[in-house]
């Protein structure tokens, strides 16, 4: 073998190995993260964590029951608001699109998708917190809904478009009106992907902390629609940046619970419902 060939083969081997190393390094980061959370969080998880309200540092027996319920409330309302709007907007883009207006809506959806979450928080603050004279779960939900809508819109549009033309034409040929065709044929056909999009979107917003900082803020007690409401991500932030060791343990436990919720939703959505197509993110 000539020297040049040997050299080329060496370069080949080295570079390909490096790419493999890069891949496995990235993959292992996930396991390191999970490992840390399970180890540190597992130590601090307790029955109290899920059932008791927070206590001042130094006192025993506190938990984050209000934050868990608060997260469910805020995210639940955000989903109730954001999913229908996003879904119907997606139906518009896929089925009823006018050339220019449709492109505008699509462009704006992508734009909204890329807006930093803290800016959405500012919007919800000026729209809800200021007129209501106070922090509230509602403000937090609206902030999260604004983030959810573009995600659901694009996912709905994408999976509706993938429904085969033949299916649609069959329904229309049988005399169905357009909206009936959409409701009874196209949407059910694309429902797997659409539902995946909704679940992924909800999972994404349930982990958001920045938009809740000055909308739902925080509460040592049970919050609600018109009251400041504690949520897991904001509690993690508050406790992790404090100097108190017992609060650090609580932060780890909360992190474990949060990541458990988010990853479970993600894995379920992708494995059970998705067709195995990787979804362009961002």
């Amino acid at each position, binding site marked *: 073998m000539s020297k040049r060939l040997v050299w*080329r083969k060496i*370069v*080949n081997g080295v570079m390909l190995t490096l*790419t*493999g190393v*890069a*891949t496995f*390094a*990235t993959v292992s*980061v*996930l396991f390191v*993260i999970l490992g*840390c*959370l399970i180890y540190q969080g597992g130590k601090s998880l307790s029955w109290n964590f899920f059932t008791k309200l927070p206590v001042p540092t130094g006192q025993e027996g506190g938990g984050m029951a209000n934050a868990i319920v608060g997260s469910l409330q805020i995210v639940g309302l955000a989903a109730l608001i954001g999913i229908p*709007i996003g879904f*119907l*907007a997606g139906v518009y883009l896929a*089925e*009823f699109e006018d050339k220019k207006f*449709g492109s505008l*809506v699509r462009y704006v*959806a*992508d734009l*909204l998708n*890329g*807006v*930093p*979450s*803290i*800016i959405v928080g*500012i*919007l919800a603050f*000026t*729209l809800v917190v200021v007129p209501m004279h106070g922090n509230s779960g509602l403000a937090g939900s609206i902030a999260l809904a*604004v983030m959810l*809508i573009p995600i659901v*819109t694009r996912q709905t549009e994408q999976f509706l478009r993938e429904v085969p033309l033949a299916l*649609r*034409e069959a329904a229309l040929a049988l*005399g169905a*009106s357009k*909206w009936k065709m959409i409701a009874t044929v196209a949407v059910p056909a694309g429902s797997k992907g659409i539902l995946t999009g909704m679940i*992924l979107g909800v*999972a*994404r917003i349930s*982990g958001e*902390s*920045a938009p809740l*900082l000055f909308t739902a803020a925080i509460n040592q007690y049970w919050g609600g629609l018109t009251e400041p409401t504690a949520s897991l*991500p904001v509690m993690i932030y508050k406790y*992790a940046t404090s100097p108190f060791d017992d609060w650090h343990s609580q932060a*780890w436990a909360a*992190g474990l619970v*949060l990541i458990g919720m988010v*990853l479970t939703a993600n894995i379920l959505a*992708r494995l059970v419902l998705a067709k195995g197509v*990787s979804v*362009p*993110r*961002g």
Partner: protein
Amino acid sequence: MASQAVIAQAPVKKKTTQIGDIVARWTVLVFAASLLAITGLLVYELWIGSAAARSALGFGFLTSSEWNPVTDKFGALPFIYGTVVTSFLALLISVPLGVGAAMFLSELAPAGISNALTFVIELLAAIPSVIYGLLAIFTVVPLMRTTVEPFLKHTLGLLPYIGALFRGPAYGVGYLTAGMVLAIMTIPFVISVSRESLLAVPREQREAALALGATRWETTWQVVMPWAKLGIFGSVFLGLARALGETMAVTMVIGNDPSIHASLLAPGYSIAAVIANEFSEAGGAIYPAALIELGLVLFFLTIVINAAARIMIMATTSKGSKRV
């Protein structure tokens, strides 16, 4: 569209179903328009909310480094600097690693393994920012302070020119740590989109190169990559857009110092971080408006970068990839 052509040729419908279609159309149109309304409202509120600062500080806002709530003199430069430096650092680390991993996943790994690994990597993208921050505070920061930063100071810090990037005390928090955390957060996006771009390259190109005697690596680097170049650039811009707007993880590790430092080991501040820290108690008329103006700057930055990313990605991953 084909479905509209079908409708045109369909038998004449009963009036009721036509009304049904009209109602349906207008309903979804309203909801689609709501997206425009939301975005319009967002821009409007950012513009109005920053009015007090814009009139008081003018264009000097973008070039001043002062951040003084006592005298109401504010400047965006340290935050723009911090945002740009940490994002740039993040890309410096995540792009080589990410594109490399994408290459492995698209060219070398068998389809099953590739899909499985990609699935795992995309889970990384789903991890909330505050959890990255939580881990960073307790694991990355001490590591940086005790091991990595002193090491850099005593090796790279002694070289001329780049040495200036590695001077000063090793706090553990600062631009470098924030950049590294951001890198981990942007890698999944780079990998995911780059992999798609690489997979979109027609098989014939690879086969032609291999048939001519190229090694696997040469094929990938000299034939496949250039074909997917635009999509890969798009993924880089996507990662950049995400890094620019990242709030929680950065706030927890950047050190929160509103000044410009040359050294990467120094503490800094980013736009998102300062808004998160100071917005809820910024009093007076100009202080909150200055923070909102910072939000406006960040908003425009991310729009521009996202738009560029979209254009590049659509050019390569849409059906029928174009020749670059």
